[in-house]
């Protein structure tokens, strides 16, 4: 990997100051900054090749359609899907999971079936499944055993049998703990029990090498904005036969074949799931983001962020009264922590004054934090452009904050 100090210069937003300090952007689990290459690609597209897609016969529209569909092919390659038809563009992970929950609730799941989740799911991989309660589909949970994020995946078998589980939906990387769940192993186990699997890859896509083939999952969701792409674009991957079996989600223009006043028929996937004008510019940006990340090298990105997180966790651990969540051994580029007697909000307000951008809150993980007796944590999350010096600043500033509030 090119050194992060050098990669930084690809990201215009990182060269700004914050409260008189160089900005240290440490909120990458919420969203990442955008490299110039992505901003350029979107701009050039709008300046040269923009038209609506799929419906035009003129040159510009053919070019726009080709650019859009080539983005789909790029996403399919990126995830090692079997074909571009397995890629449905969505606004992001949340919409992808809503789509799947809605359509699976009507097409794949029946009254009395169970869906198995973990206690560490992001609200976006929990609430959409709760909505199926009205159809008599019940949720069950693999408990999180400790603050390291340990889950006993052996329990799948027993739970699956006991509760007629049809689908297991789990996060690949926990956005508050930095825990990496062994997706391939989990999917293999689920498959052997006849369960369908959805992997929430919001925190892993663009942060490590991903392959739906190696993982063996049936569905996977991710957001472009967490991997250098613009907001408003993401995707749902679904195995071809399964997408074929799913009813549409949103309906309207572009996803229909024949429309009569009283009934309509649907295109094949993926277009069946893409009603209306899609986020064409977003898809172009996502393609450019994948290009950028693959040039940097995803294995290196993973190693770098993970090393920074380990370094941060070790450094923070020496501060009196700190409590660090997440695994001790292998953690993704995420460190959540709380400081005794200092509320997470006050903490990040102080860090902000030092030019350190961290998030405080429940990280859309209320059930998990509640289990730990917490309402909020501070979270530092790293990406390819973060450097050790930023971590040093963080550790120092947390210590300074502690002293300030200790009075």
């Amino acid at each position, binding site marked *: 990997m090119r050194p992060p100090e050098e990669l930084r210069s690809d990201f215009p937003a990182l060269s700004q100051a914050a409260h008189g300090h160089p900005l240290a952007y440490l909120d990458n689990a919420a969203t990442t900054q955008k490299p110039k290459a992505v901003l350029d690609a979107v701009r050039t597209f709008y300046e040269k090749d923009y038209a609506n897609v799929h419906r035009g016969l003129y040159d510009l529209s053919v070019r726009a359609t080709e650019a859009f569909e080539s983005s789909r092919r790029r996403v399919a390659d990126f995830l090692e899907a079997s074909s571009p038809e397995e890629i449905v563009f969505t606004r992001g992970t949340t919409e992808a999971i809503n789509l799947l929950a809605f359509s699976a609730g009507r097409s794949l799941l029946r009254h009395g079936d169970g869906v198995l989740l973990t206690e560490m799911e992001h609200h976006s991989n929990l609430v959409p499944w709760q909505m199926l309660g009205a159809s008599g589909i019940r949720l069950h949970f693999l408990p999180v055993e400790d603050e390291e994020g340990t889950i006993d995946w052996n329990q799948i078998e027993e739970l699956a049998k006991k509760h007629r589980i049809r689908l297991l939906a789990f996060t690949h990387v926990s956005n508050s703990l930095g825990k990496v769940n062994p997706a391939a192993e989990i999917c293999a186990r689920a498959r052997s029990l006849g369960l369908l699997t959805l992997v929430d890859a919001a925190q892993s896509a663009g942060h490590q090498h991903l392959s739906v083939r190696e993982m063996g999952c049936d569905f996977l969701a991710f957001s472009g904005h967490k991997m250098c792409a613009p907001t408003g674009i993401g995707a749902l991957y679904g195995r071809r036969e399964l997408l074929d079996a799913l009813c549409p989600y949103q309906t309207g223009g572009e996803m229909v074949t024949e429309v009569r006043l009283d009934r309509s028929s649907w295109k094949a996937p993926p277009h069946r799931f893409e009603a209306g004008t899609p986020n064409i510019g977003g898809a172009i940006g996502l393609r450019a983001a994948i290009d950028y990340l693959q040039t940097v090298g995803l294995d290196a990105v993973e190693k770098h962020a993970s090393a920074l997180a380990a370094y941060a966790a070790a450094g923070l651990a020496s501060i009196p009264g700190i409590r660090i969540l997440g695994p001790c051994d292998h953690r993704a580029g995420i460190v959540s922590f709380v400081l005794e007697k200092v509320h997470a909000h*006050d903490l990040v307000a102080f860090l902000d004054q030092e030019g350190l951008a961290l998030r405080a809150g429940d990280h859309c993980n209320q059930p998990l934090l509640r289990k730990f007796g917490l309402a909020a944590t501070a979270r530092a999350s790293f990406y390819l452009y973060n450097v050790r010096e930023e971590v040093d600043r963080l550790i120092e500033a947390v210590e300074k904050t502690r002293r300030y509030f200790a009075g």
Partner: protein
Amino acid sequence: MELDELYREAILDHARHPRNFGELEGSDRSASATNVGCGDAIRLFLRLSPAGRIEAIRFSGSGCAISTASASLLTLAVQGQSSEEAQALSARIQRLLTGTSAPQDDLPGDLAALAGVRRFPQRVGCAMLSWHALEEALRGPEKSPA
């Protein structure tokens, strides 16, 4: 540091040593407010005199320094006030924090320290949390004691 404006001495003091903290035995009104952004929740307990004045007031819950200090300050400020007086004060604080009144509005006692929050719009919700609970408690029908 800019933040000294937000965390004025009085705020830090009340955050570290909140006054009237804990539940109130024999309260006849209580209400809570939650800050959606962060999950912080403050619960207020009131006892009203026959004439409708706030005879006793305490708060519980967990929050940041701003919401804790604001709640602590609140309990001192409204003690002995009528429902109308307390509501008027709450409205005054709201105006001060959202910048619709002049920052010089000299609030009684340490309450003035809250004026520092107006420069931090993302923290106004924290400062107002207990005041929303107060309004709710004063408005609400008599609640069974907690």
